[in-house]
């Protein structure tokens, strides 16, 4: 039953992707950013779906199983404020710059903003390095989920292969439009199914009050923050959602907006979407402690699967598996496409064709790289062990640590390429340092104080950017005038 529901679901996703292909205009801009024509609903769904990974949802319920309600404040409500704020201040500006100057990738923007090919290349390497663990988690997570949901009947390599094949088909066919359509469908699926699972299971357990009263009697520490989370951790964790400012896949989705007003409803509804997904995730994670009180470490990440197995009909388990697949693929597709776009635009087009590449060549190379990226990811997923999941958590820290770069580029005329390069270097060095210090410790904080490493890296990289920029020469006046015009100009969109 579970397998049948998943297969039907995957076919539906493929159908949606192929329908979107009928709107394809045959240009590079259409393939990579849907001709910058996406409306508010699709923008909201694709931004949210891309950012909300299954790893986050399952991992959060596992975390709530161990540490209780504090996880919601750490990971969900902080994001509900920080992410739309970043969209408001950063996303709209990058959208406008992208539309005005025809940018398709972050590297194109930063390279021109600081007039430095070297910085563009260094940033490319760092972004790709941080994206790879994400892709691996998506593919490995797909395999693992299918394996668990079918009680071992489907091997992990088959699940991973299935995810790669479906994503490759609709991303190659539909480009970003296909990705946005499939994302919208998949985001709706996992939001609705999360709500249904919550309603059915909590109802079976006697209602919220009964569940939480029972948890309060047996595991009272789960209903408060207590010793599980330190106040400084709650404060410094708010740096983590800054990562959305530097995610290549979110940058790509921002560029698809039809006009600046397209951002309005996504800004307003993003916190509500977060709430809708995380309430079931956290409460079911906590409730699971009643039936499965002794799960240790990462074993708790499958708590939702276990609770559904125990309390919900088999059909719901099948739908939930489809929902988890939806969350996995709605992130994987955008990440794969953004990586394909970066290789095509930032390497092949810029260095191989001196920025002179026909529309047809761009699309062809884009597709080649989508296939290549997925193929390499799939092969790596067979080689790597599950310890790669730890690296995924650190990817967030890496992207968030790059946030001072985008702030300086957009808001500080005086910032220079040397400042940017030094800032990037400080991020790499500190990230490696903290990774080596804390990769083996679950919930690592700086010196055990509760301070998240990301807060330290962001502060240092911002300081380095300021000091080195002030000590070095400004970019040429023409470059500054291009990005910070001194007089009003006519719209050229």
């Amino acid at each position, binding site marked *: 039953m579970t397998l049948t529901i998943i297969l039907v679901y995957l076919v539906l996703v493929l159908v949606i992707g192929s329908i979107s292909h009928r709107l394809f205009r045959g240009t590079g801009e259409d393939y990579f950013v849907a001709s910058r024509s996406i409306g508010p609903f699709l923008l909201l769904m694709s931004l949210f779906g891309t950012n909300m990974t299954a790893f986050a949802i399952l991992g959060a319920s596992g975390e709530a199983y161990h540490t209780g309600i504090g996880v919601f404040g750490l990971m969900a409500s902080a994001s509900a404020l920080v992410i739309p704020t970043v969209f408001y201040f950063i996303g*709209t500006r990058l959208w406008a710059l992208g539309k005005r100057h025809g940018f398709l990738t972050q590297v194109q923007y930063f390279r021109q903003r600081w007039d430095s090919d070297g910085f563009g290349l260094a940033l490319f390497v760092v972004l790709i390095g941080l994206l790879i663990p994400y892709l691996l988690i998506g593919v490995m997570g797909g395999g693992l989920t299918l394996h668990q949901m079918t009680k071992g009947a489907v091997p992990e390599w088959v699940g991973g292969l299935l995810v790669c094949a479906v994503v490759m088909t609709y991303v190659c066919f539909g480009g970003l439009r296909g990705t946005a359509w499939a994302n919208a469908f998949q985001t709706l699926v996992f939001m609705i199914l999360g709500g249904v699972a919550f309603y059915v299971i909590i109802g079976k357990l006697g209602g919220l009050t009964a569940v939480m009263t029972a948890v309060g009697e047996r595991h009272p520490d789960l209903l408060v923050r207590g010793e599980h989370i330190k106040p400084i951790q709650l404060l410094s964790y708010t740096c983590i959602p800054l990562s959305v400012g530097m995610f290549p896949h979110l940058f790509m989705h921002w560029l698809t907006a039809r*006009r600046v007003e397209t951002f309005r409803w996504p800004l307003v509804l993003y916190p509500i979407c977060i709430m809708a997904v995380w309430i079931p995730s956290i409460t079911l994670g906590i409730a699971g402690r009643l039936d499965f009180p002794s799960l240790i470490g990462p074993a708790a990440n499958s708590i939702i699967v276990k609770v559904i197995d125990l309390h919900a009909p088999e059909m719901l388990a099948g739908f939930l598996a489809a929902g988890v697949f939806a969350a996995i693929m709605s992130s994987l597709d955008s990440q794969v496409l953004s990586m394909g776009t970066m290789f095509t635009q930032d390497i092949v087009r810029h260095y191989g064709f001196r920025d002179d590449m026909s529309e047809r060549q761009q699309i062809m190379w884009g597709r080649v790289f989508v296939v290549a990226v997925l193929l390499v990811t799939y092969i790596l997923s067979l080689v790597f062990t599950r310890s790669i999941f730890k690296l995924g958590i650190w990817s967030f820290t890496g992207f968030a640590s790059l946030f001072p770069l985008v702030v300086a580029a957009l808001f500080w005329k005086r910032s220079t390429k040397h400042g940017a390069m030094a800032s990037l270097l400080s991020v790499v060095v500190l990230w490696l340092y903290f990774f080596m210090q804390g990769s083996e410790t679950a919930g690592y904080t700086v010196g055990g104080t509760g301070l998240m490493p990301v807060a330290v890296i962001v502060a240092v990289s911002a300081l380095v950017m300021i000091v080195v920029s002030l000590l070095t020469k400004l970019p040429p006046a023409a470059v500054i005038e291009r990005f910070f*015009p001194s007089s009003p100009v006519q719209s050229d969109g």
Partner: protein
Amino acid sequence: MGMKGFFPRWLLYLFLFVLYVFHNDLWLWDDPTLVMGLPIGLMYHILFCVAASLLMLLLVNFAFPPPTLGEGRSLPSDAEEGEPS
């Protein structure tokens, strides 16, 4: 837009900061009271999400679009051939 001045941009930005400060609800840290079936520390953060959404509603109504591409620079116009979505 006569209503634009009702909430000046600076005031909304101040609200953003104040809301950010209120994210740190130290006063509910060890309170296990249930409100509508949920622990108060969780209910607080759920309401925080609603407050964030309402603040975004104010921002997009009274301070949108944000100042873009330098003072006085106009925004790019709409796509010539947008598609319904």
